[in-house]
């Protein structure tokens, strides 16, 4: 387990991106999604990547998470140089290092909440009882102990996203990456999810990257990076208001009643 993180910037960097370029070819047109991005994220930082649609913010997240390869540039995450990894190596990297959370949750519809959470353990080759025990613990910690055998369609949006977060945490990765995690949720549920991510950063020492275009969401971050047309236009470290990053944040299960079920 990583030591509880600090947001003072003195922690060692866990993510380094150097001169990142990404060029997509659409028909006979070349689109520069990223045009020379340099970014360093210290361990334990909560960073929000903002920008309008097409600014390249999701592309940056996917590059740093090993879901895509840069056209040009170097990426080093948790001591691994992603440029040299093959597809098996990248799968390995993703399994061990990054927990992904998506706007559309991306739960497997045929599996129960428990099985969805335990799915990363399947690909990690973990024994069944170990997997289930761990998945139950995570779901219980997220206030989902009574929803273990529910299928995704039997769960509300907020509950689905909590299942997705539990899944992202399953392999205890040092980095959590979330692409518009509140985009499909109402504002109250969205706040609960953001508090949860904040808690993971503050209390569990996870490094959290959130892509969003919602400035409320960015309010939970230690640092806000703004992208425009594939380049960073602003890199802003912020001091959080007391009570958001301080000890005032509680473990999510205590807030279970607050979460809307709809």
């Amino acid at each position, binding site marked *: 387990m990583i030591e509880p993180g600090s947001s003072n910037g003195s922690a060692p960097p866990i993510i380094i991106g150097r001169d990142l370029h990404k060029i997509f070819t659409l028909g006979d047109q070349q689109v520069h999604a990223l045009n020379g991005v340099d970014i360093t994220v210290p361990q334990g930082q909560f960073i929000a990547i903002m920008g309008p649609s097409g600014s390249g913010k999701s592309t940056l997240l*996917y590059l740093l998470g090993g879901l895509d390869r840069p056209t040009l540039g170097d990426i080093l995450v948790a001591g691994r140089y992603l440029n040299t990894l093959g597809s098996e190596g990248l799968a390995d990297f993703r399994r061990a290092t990054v927990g992904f959370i998506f706007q559309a949750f*991306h739960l497997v519809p045929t599996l129960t909440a428990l099985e969805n959470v335990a799915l990363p353990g399947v690909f990690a080759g973990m024994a069944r009882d170990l997997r289930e025990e761990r998945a139950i613990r995570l779901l219980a910690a997220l206030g989902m102990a009574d929803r273990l055998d529910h299928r995704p369609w039997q769960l509300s949006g907020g509950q689905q996203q909590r299942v997705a977060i539990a899944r992202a945490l399953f392999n205890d990765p040092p980095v959590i990456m979330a692409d518009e995690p509140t985009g499909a949720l109402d504002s109250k549920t969205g706040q609960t999810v953001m508090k949860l991510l904040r808690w993971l950063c503050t209390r569990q020492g996870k490094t959290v990257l959130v892509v969003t275009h919602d400035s409320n969401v960015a309010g939970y971050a230690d640092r806000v990076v703004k992208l425009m047309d594939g380049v960073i236009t602003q890199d802003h470290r912020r001091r959080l208001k007391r009570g958001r990053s301080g000890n005032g944040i509680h473990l999510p299960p205590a807030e279970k009643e607050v979460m809307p079920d709809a």
Partner: protein
Amino acid sequence: MFYELAMLAINNLGRARARLLMTSGGVLVGTTAVIILIALTIGLQQSAEAGIGSSAALTEIQVYPNFAPNPDGTFPENVPELDVEAVRLLWQIPGVAAVIPMVNLQGGELVAGDYTGYTQILGIDPTLLPYLGVQVTQGQLTLERGQALIGAHAGDYFNDPESSGDTYQPVQVDLFNTPFEVKLYQYTSATPTERRVDIIPAGLLQEGTSSYDYAMLMPLEDVIRLNEWITGQPVDAKNFRYDQILVRATDREVTLDVSAAIRDLGFGAGGMGDFLNQLNSFFGTMRLMLGGVGGVALLVAAFGVANTMTMAILERTREIGLMKAIGASDRDILTVFLIEAGLVGLAGGLAGVGLSMLLRDAINQAVMNMPAESAASGFLFLPIAPGQVSGGLIIIPPELSVFALVLATVVGLGAGLYPSLRAARLPPVVALKME
């Protein structure tokens, strides 16, 4: 891990049940076609063999002097004849269990009380009887001097020479239990001399096991001696000719080789064994052809499986991206989809085997109940009358079922390979962004 991936695959199969049923249905039809068509050739072959003769017939080769013209149209000179030397040469062929030379008695009028009849009387070396492929129903399979083994139907066409009227009235005489004698004539002088020889039945041959139903077997020496009397000429070992030579191969696999070796010696060779072995290769070809027809149905089913897998992968592209995002390797994805495809094939195969067994029972029952005449007209192209076949027209050996199951699974796997590889190689970000 494989177990978990297989469980994922099975879960996935439950998603689009109607599609799964239809795709497996295609494999079912293909598998059933392969099984039934191959089973038909197996049934026909076994019926043909059962109809043609006993297993002894399969190793039997008739040797005769080959007077057939050469390929260039000329006639061969010095055709080897069935003499003592020929017997010696035939014994030396590898795979020969016995060489059985035989001599015809020159005359064969039998007299049993008031009735007379004719039959072929063959002289055979009694020590070679075990190689002749014959059984007795009464008496013993031995031959002493003055004895005879009697063909099952040798006494069927006797008649009373003194009976009035023009119509021939055959009378059946039980030669095994009725005393009889052979009437012989010597034509060396102007007036033929008649001689009657008493014959003691040693055994009655079983019907249908050999080509001796209407014949009688006697010791070779007896027959040669009687022939000497008939012709008035003593037998000269140098000029002596056998009337026929039967070669028994050690087993049916070598029968064709032995036949070829006999032809190499310049003799003609034929017989049921030869014929049946050729029949076997005919059925082998037929099996390949009909199996190929079934294979075409299976090939069509393969396209169905490929289509279904491609659709499934299109539908689940984002899920594939998700699985990769949470740590699934290309190999994991490939395994899940290949198992799905293989299961589609296996399910179709299992259903196909089941359906084939039902069809087999139904067809065999129908053929069994078919009146002989309509069977003959309906199955005129068959070398047998199916109604008389006890084993059934459709025979599915266990190996055929297993083969069909494996084939169906392999077809599923093969058809699923390309779509599965494509799924496995999808870049995760592309898969995730797919709408």
